[in-house]
């Protein structure tokens, strides 16, 4: 079973900075915490609750904002029944740990409601839905080491099934693996079922079972590959 789609934009935030597919800046993963851009750099209108976001949510929301801007959909996703799927391994573990710590004092009486809200890995997608009018499917997939490919596959299936007019597919990792030097950051791409008038097409993709193929027939092995120069 197969289906085609186009990538019309992308955005990323890592310890090396932030960028968009259309800018051609290389996507690098130097060691260290991702450098979150200032609100004014990425949002025309910052999300109302931005000050309450945890790092995982800020990271994801920033990458989604950059991807939508890149696709020319910063203010236009609402009309497209667009959805968002995200893969993450450790999800919002830092917030989980902070919430759990808040429950230890006074036998739970001081448990933090705001922290608890952000212990759901899909809250970042909900915040993006509110901020950008994403009314399509929103959910997280498990990360399998291919940095967002599970999300891209799910997004392509939804487009093929006609369940959304456009999908954002991405990856967020804000917590390093215990005792390991693992890449941190967030990246999202906008995928659409067909080229949109006036929009750029960065890549044409084709799903074949559990594989995603590039235009030249090569297998896409990780989402960051889409941010690398064409070979």
């Amino acid at each position: 079973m197969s289906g085609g789609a186009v990538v019309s934009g992308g955005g990323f935030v890592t310890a090396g900075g932030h960028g968009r597919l259309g800018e051609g800046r290389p996507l690098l993963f130097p060691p260290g915490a991702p450098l979150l851009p200032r609100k004014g750099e990425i949002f025309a209108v910052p999300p109302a609750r931005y000050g309450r976001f945890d790092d995982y949510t800020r990271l994801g929301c920033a990458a989604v904002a950059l991807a939508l801007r890149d696709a020319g959909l910063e203010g236009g996703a609402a009309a497209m029944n667009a959805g968002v799927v995200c893969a993450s391994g450790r999800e919002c573990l830092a917030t989980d740990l902070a919430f759990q710590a808040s429950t230890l004092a006074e036998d739970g009486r001081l448990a933090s409601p705001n922290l608890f809200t952000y212990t759901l890995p899909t809250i970042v997608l909900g915040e993006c839905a509110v901020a950008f009018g994403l009314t399509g499917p929103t959910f997280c997939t498990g990360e399998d080491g291919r940095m967002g490919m599970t999300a891209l596959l799910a997004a392509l299936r939804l487009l093929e099934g006609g369940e959304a007019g456009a999908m954002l597919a991405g990856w967020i990792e804000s917590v390093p693996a215990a005792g390991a030097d693992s890449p941190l950051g967030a990246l999202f791409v906008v995928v659409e079922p067909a080229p949109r008038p006036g929009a750029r097409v960065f890549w044409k993709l084709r799903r074949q079972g559990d594989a995603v193929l590039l235009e030249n027939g090569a297998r896409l092995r990780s989402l960051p590959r889409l941010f690398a120069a064409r070979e």
Partner: protein
Amino acid sequence: MTGKARAVILADAAAMTALGASLDETWEGLLAGRSAVSSVTRFSTEHVAHHVAACIADLDGLRRAGENRTLALARAAALQLRALPAGTFLIWTGLKGNAEPLDEAQGGAAQALAEPWRARHYRERLAAALGLDPENGMEVSAACASSTVGLALGAGMIRSGERDSVLVCAADIVSRFAFLGFSALQALSSSACRPFDVARDGLCLGDGAAAVLLASEETAKRHGLERDIRLAGFGVANDATHITGPAADGRGLARAMRAALLRAGVLPDVVEAFCAHGTGTPYNDSMELSALEDVFGARRFPVFSIKGALGHALGATGALEAALSAWALRRGLAPPTAGLLTPETRAAGRAAAAPQRFAGRNLLTVNSGFGGVNAALLLERCA
């Protein structure tokens, strides 16, 4: 999608809840109007304002070496399935697998304890226990609509011809982590979950696991599985209004419901019963009634919630409700809504404390969750 869409059969289902160790027992308890909600003894609730949930008495008794309670519950439920076709794709939809290890963690050990219990680990371990290929599956997390979204994705795979069988499986238990979180949000009931009641004051959490096997008609026939219930339509939509509060007008849920009906190629008129998310929180139930009125107008038909009896099993609740909805369709009987004493005005003539008969042809089951997600499944009984 190319070619003709295939029918999606709900070929088998299994469950374990605080009301029963099987789907049959749970159904019988529901039908009798029993509730498993009682005082929490699993952890101390002395210093918070909420004290009840629907817990399975001896979860530890289910554990095998290397399992935690959540995985043991999922495995025990899934092993009740009659057959699993070779090549079955497994979708794990448990919501917060690291809550249980975090309950047992203190200080610096917390991350190390939590990391081996990510969603992927549950799926891989469950696949091994069921004799399935651990590489053949995925994990889906969509808050309290997780397994409903998982079922929608699985149905899409079968409908398109990509897979012949998909197992959607989840378990969530009443953890201290989740209990204290919902308590802090003032989302829990102080006494009992009363969906659609004028005096409802919040949800009750519940232990629960469910496994729902979807298959193509040919695969179900080949394995001697039930073929009378079809998952005829599905839809997923986001409110895009708020992350914890549902859209008051039910716009996202109404869109998900309409998408499910559209995919099934039917009009709203065919729906005869409605398995509500029905958490018993003032806002959720009101939102659902708004969505019902939006899609179905003033027409009244049986509406039920199982959460007054079983509590809210979070990621597992959608699969539990789909499984119990199949039972309801086969019997043409909507189970009572436990905890309901006086329906609010818009629920009158819909939700009831007694079983309600319907023709047993079409039923819509829905779930909504934090982050604004909504999902709807249309089940159809074939002659």
